[in-house]
């Protein structure tokens, strides 16, 4: 394979959608050609840089019954995700260079797509003692995070951010005030009151972001807020960026496409962290992605087996799989007129690449040929049992969706074809 012809090229860097073809050589984009070039006919479908998904949970080590490198890799390839940036909230946590080394070797051996690991920020993600940031960087960690556990003590986080900054390390934080969020499984409001579930105000997110922004201002650290999901937190982010702090923010596909009412009668597949928000919050974060205030959209892929979800809502595990549902879920925002394809691709490919200093995420000569070919219109009904992830916990089961991945390429090699 050397030329992909007759495609609609989606370039997030220039913000353009143009007809054309790509010539690929040695795993990179070698030339951009007119649409009528000879090669594999893409039938006028969309060809874009592959998705770079920040925050993927893989069940290795410790929870291979929920997801393995093989199944996550297959799901990623089928979902157009060419780079998984993985979370360290495994069992045990990825908090030493030895565990990280094991993780990287497993990934290299098995995964058909790129894997870039994040490592724990603190030992055992305990929020107290910092992990060996330097050694972990040397081993290959691209960022540091305690996943869904925020460092509660600001003094400790101040030191960690100072140390991380001196090491040039990126820190990703979960921005939910932990005391406020303790035991809460739903966003507070009339709906939560009706269901009688322990609830948390979205203000808990703003509070934590405000605290973290003060610490970032003190330390100068490079900081990424994993998920901004409510209107109240947006002005804080805006101010931090206006001040020139080294801050970016993400949001999950679920918070962009679902709201609290989707929980209906205690449907545990809709239990995620932070909990789904009110509709006006959802709209606000969709608009923030469109405007670029929120930089990155990720799937927050969190595999959970049937047993951990077949429980009363309060006891059930949090999280949803997303590698394979990401693209069709987000197409809803494009078809709904909230954003263009290049704008969306800025959030799922270009910005993650920039944040991690990768060359991918662009359709330029010399960039890695990590690509996804997809039909943005193809309709289908989501059947969770057809997902390639070992766990099938998607809230989109049974939903009418649009957008199908046709082919996925990693470094010019085809890793998926529908």
């Amino acid at each position, binding site marked *: 394979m050397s030329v992909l012809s007759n495609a609609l090229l989606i370039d997030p860097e220039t913000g353009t959608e143009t007809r054309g073809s790509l010539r690929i050589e040695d795993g990179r984009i070698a030339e951009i050609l007119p649409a009528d070039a000879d090669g594999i006919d893409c039938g006028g479908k969309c060809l874009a840089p592959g998705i770079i998904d920040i925050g993927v949970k893989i069940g290795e080590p410790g929870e291979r019954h929920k997801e393995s490198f093989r199944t996550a890799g297959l799901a990623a390839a089928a979902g157009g995700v060419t780079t998984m940036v993985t979370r360290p909230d495994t069992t045990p946590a990825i908090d030493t260079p030895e565990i990280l080394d094991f993780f990287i070797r497993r990934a290299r051996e098995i995964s058909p797509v790129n894997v870039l690991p994040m490592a724990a920020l603190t030992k055992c993600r305990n929020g107290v003692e910092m992990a060996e940031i330097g050694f972990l960087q040397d081993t290959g960690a691209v960022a540091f995070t305690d996943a869904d556990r925020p460092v509660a003590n600001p003094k400790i986080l101040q030191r960690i951010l100072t140390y991380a900054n001196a090491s040039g390390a990126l820190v990703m934080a979960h921005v939910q005030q932990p005391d406020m969020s303790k035991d809460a499984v739903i966003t507070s409001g009339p709906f*939560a*009151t009706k269901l009688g579930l322990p609830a948390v105000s979205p203000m808990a997110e703003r509070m934590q972001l405000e605290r973290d922004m003060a610490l970032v201002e003190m330390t100068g650290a490079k900081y990424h807020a994993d998920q901004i999901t409510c209107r109240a937190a947006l002005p804080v982010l805006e101010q931090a960026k206006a001040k020139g702090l080294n801050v970016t923010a993400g949001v999950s596909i679920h918070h962009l496409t679902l709201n609290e009412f989707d929980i209906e009668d205690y449907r545990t597949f809709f239990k995620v962290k932070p909990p789904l928000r009110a509709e006006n919050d959802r709209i606000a974060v969709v608009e923030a992605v469109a405007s670029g205030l929120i930089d990155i959209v990720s799937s927050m892929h969190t595999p959970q087996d049937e*047993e951990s979800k*077949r429980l009363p*809502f309060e006891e059930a595990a949090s999280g949803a799989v997303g590698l394979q549902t990401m693209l069709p879920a987000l197409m809803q925002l494009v078809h709904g007129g909230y954003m263009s394809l290049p704008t969306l691709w800025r959030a799922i490919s270009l910005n993650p690449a920039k944040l991690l200093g990768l060359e991918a995420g662009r359709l330029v000569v010399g960039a890695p040929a990590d690509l996804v070919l997809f039909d943005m219109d193809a309709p289908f009904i989501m059947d969770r049992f057809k997902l390639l992830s070992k766990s099938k916990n998607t809230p989109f089961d049974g939903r009418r969706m649009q957008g199908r991945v046709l082919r996925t390429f990693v470094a010019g090699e085809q890793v998926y074809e529908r």
Partner: protein
Amino acid sequence: MFPHRHLLGIEQLSQTDIVTILDLAEKYASLNRQQHKHLDVLSGLTQINMFFENSTRTQTSFEIAGKRLGADVMNMAMQASSIKKGETLIDTALTLNAMHPDLLVVRHPHSGAVQLLAEKVNCAVLNAGDGRHEHPTQALLDALTIRRSKGRLHRLTIAICGDIAHSRVARSNMFLLGKMENRVRLVGPKTLMPSGVDKLGVEVTDNMTEGLEGADVVMMLRLQKERMDGGFIPSEREYYHRWGLDAAKLSKAKPDAIVMHPGPMNRGVEIDGTLADDINRSVIQEQVEMGVAVRMAVMDLLARNLQGGAA
């Protein structure tokens, strides 16, 4: 006649359903006052009471109700059983289901758990309280008590007072009394008021005098011991001073207003002891009595809809 397989909450019931239950319960209330109070309408049926959370009163009430109608009643103390061995709720349900019960009465500390269980079994499930969600038979027995005392169950002003946030009784009552077109006021400290509850068709105030003004019914809620010390309210005595029901506060309500409490009471915390015992105002004992009658009615109605029955 009664188009439900289970009784999971008040939310699913219509006005007609509620009246149907109360009318039948009224008959059972008369039966219960006779010396011979045994019928055979549930004869041959097996009723299992599964209480994942302790409750002597409710469990006893359900047990008596079942026995008076001739059912074979089993009590399972779930806290002491398989749940401790790590069995999941659904497995417990399936195990029980295999023993072919006809009526399952379930109380569970988590909201929505009873519904989850109901989805997995073939028999009729009665919610005897799930988390902070619903306690439908309590609301029904309260409604029956109100109707008997006031002669009607509409266009009344009803004040529900105390710890609304943690109360499934408050939620079920709110839904039921709202459906029957009453004016419902929630009264209690703001720290014990669930967020956004004012958007659910009720009036909300933290002032007892205001809240009780012109009320036909004053419904007090139990304040859990663990919420008394500093976390939600400063102290027991300050709570009693501001939100405890005494004669002075009650004087703001209508002269014939009745006083209710789902029990068990904390005398001197949420209600003055003398007031609770005042037979001219307090209907607390009648609530307990109606509890049995309402539970008999609900089980009777659900049994008629069981597979193979004349639904």
